[in-house]
């Protein structure tokens, strides 16, 4: 099973969109971690994570979301999540992540959230 997980980056103005594809588990979580770290290093803390092509997530993947959100908000940005399939969304909800992250349906909606509510209280 080569390359079971990929991150592809696009941008909408000053919002970075990270499109996740495949299986995000303890093996592939470092790839996602590096992608977010790269945004922070480049001073681009306004991040949308597009999970439309994300087939699977385990707690190692959820841990990446959890570990970075404070830093992202401290840097004046936010991380908004969109496009999750019901199967993947269920895992976020089991852990109560909907109370912490803005979760919407589409990339445009997520980008729009930065216009209306630039940062969310952590």
């Amino acid at each position, binding site marked *: *099973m080569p390359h*079971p997980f990929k991150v592809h980056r696009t941008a909408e103005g000053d919002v970075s969109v990270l499109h996740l594809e495949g*299986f995000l*588990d*303890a*093996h592939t979580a470092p790839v996602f*971690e590096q992608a977010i770290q790269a945004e922070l290093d480049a001073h681009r803390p306004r991040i949308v994570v597009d999970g439309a092509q994300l087939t*699977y997530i*385990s*707690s*190692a993947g*959820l*841990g*990446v979301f*959890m*570990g*970075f*959100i*404070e*830093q992202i908000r401290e840097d004046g940005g936010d991380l908004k999540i969109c496009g999750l399939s019901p*199967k993947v969304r269920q*895992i976020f909800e*089991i*852990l*109560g*992540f909907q*109370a*912490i992250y803005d979760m919407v349906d589409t990339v445009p909606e997520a980008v729009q959230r930065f216009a209306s509510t630039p940062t969310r209280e*952590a």
Partner: protein
Amino acid sequence: MTSLERTFSLKVPSATENLALIREFVGNVGSQAGLVEDDVAKLELAVDEAVANVIEHAHGNDSNKEVTVRATFDTATLRIEVVDEGEGFDPTAVPSTPVEQMVHDRRTGGLGLRVMKSLMDEVSYEIIPGERNRLRLLKRIQK
């Protein structure tokens, strides 16, 4: 003569690159056991969490060690055993910190056990220090 119980076992090097293979294995066994699709997905995730813990915490990412996953089912239940030869730990001592607090502490881990518990019907550890630790997961098969 066919007994009602079926056992499958898989032994692989203790490395996260094998999590995908392990998920497929338990997914196939789960389907064969008659779990509905949604429960097969839950089983795959719970076993992934169990094995990821063994690889990281019990075996310290040493891929010369091995992980064994055993799956047994009859018409009523599917049971999974994951055995490690690590030092063991006290699962009752793992704190159930609210995620809001974990976010505040910038934790990147600590979610695996609660994921397993919410997905499976039973989760139990049998820790025999210095000998072996066995995690059992049980999922009832919906009729």
